[in-house]
């Protein structure tokens, strides 16, 4: 909070803006808050800042009863718009630290006046990073898939089924170990591992190809899917 430097044109402008819809610094009656800000000014604000000037003239009329106005005088930094940082240095040290926590400007950059030096360093780092990235070989994304292939009944020839499945040849597809897992009533399902390149083989294509052996395969599920 605060108006910044009230002796500078920028500070007065903040005050002017702040007072556009307010008659007093705080609340609806003149108080010590007004006196504190009034005293911080070096004189009447310029005529074009009419909100600030109006307030100034009004508070001036309370000159004689200044000390009897209600409220307790607080450091100047406690008044004014919330989104302006206090630059008067009048706020006590501990409250200032508290303020720092509250006033995190999520959308602003932390140093607006970026100097030449830091700009150069940043660009250098960026160039380095780009070079490093281009040297690295592109990683091929692979996945390890565990498939469950279910036969029609206990009379389905599982060896033949496995042969059929393994007969599927595609670029970027490697078949791995397999085993037969009993499901019940003497029926066994084929659990088979395979490694695929993500860009080249999709599970949809795989499923389509496997279920194409309709004589043996009743259905197919993906039991596990792991990115390598």
């Amino acid at each position, binding site marked *: 909070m605060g108006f910044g430097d009230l002796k500078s044109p920028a500070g007065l402008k903040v005050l002017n803006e702040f007072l556009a819809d307010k*008659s007093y610094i705080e609340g609806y009656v003149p108080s010590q808050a007004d006196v504190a800000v009034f005293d911080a000014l070096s004189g009447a604000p310029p005529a074009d800042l009419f909100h600030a000037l109006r307030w100034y003239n009004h508070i001036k009329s309370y000159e004689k009863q200044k000390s009897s106005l209600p409220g307790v005088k607080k450091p100047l930094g406690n008044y004014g718009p919330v989104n302006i940082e206090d630059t008067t240095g009048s706020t006590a040290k501990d409250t200032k630290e508290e303020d720092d926590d509250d006033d995190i400007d999520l959308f602003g950059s932390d140093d607006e006046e970026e100097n030449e030096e830091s700009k150069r360093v940043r660009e250098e780092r960026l160039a380095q990073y780009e070079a490093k990235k281009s040297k690295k070989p592109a990683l091929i994304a692979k996945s390890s898939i565990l498939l469950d292939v279910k036969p029609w009944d206990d009379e389905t020839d599982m060896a033949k089924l496995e042969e059929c499945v393994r007969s599927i040849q595609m670029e970027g597809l490697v078949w791995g170990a397999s085993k037969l897992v009993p499901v019940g009533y003497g029926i066994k399902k084929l659990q088979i591992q395979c490694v695929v390149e993500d860009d080249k083989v999709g599970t949809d294509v795989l499923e389509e190809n496997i279920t194409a052996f309709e004589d043996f395969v009743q259905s197919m599920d993906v039991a596990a899917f792991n990115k390598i």
Partner: protein
Amino acid sequence: MAVKELVALEKCLGLNSGKYSSRAQGAGKIPVLQTNKGPSLVGLSTIASHLVKEAKKEELLGSTAEEKAIVQQWLEYRISYIDRASSKEDIRNVLNDLNHYLKDKVFVAGNTVTLADILIYYGLHPVITGLSVQEKETYINVSRWFSHIQNYPGIRQHLPSLVFIKNRIYASNH
């Protein structure tokens, strides 16, 4: 309307309620106060001034000769412009007038509340109630003055408190 307003003013001044009636005059109605002594008083500002004197709060009519004149002028304005504003155009003119006038003022006259503040506040209340947020911001000086007066102890009475917010989303041009 005017009678209700005078009753509110009586309460605000700490007076007992008087005997009011209203009389048709021209297109509108004007309030009449039947006093115990002498003839009855006619007209809003006449009665209001009388009430202020009755309550021995003469400072509400202005403390210097200049302030007194300003208060009278704005009481007249209240009757002849605010009360007779019938079209949207009239209302806009009134608001523009006031917005301009209040630019460098906290109260209508001087640096304390006067009868002019109170009566213009009562008179404008229905008008301000009908304004949109954007309009309220256009007439920022009126809005500021209005919210100041409605928060001044004792004035608002039965009237609902209106909300003023400063919208910072769009650029304002006041």
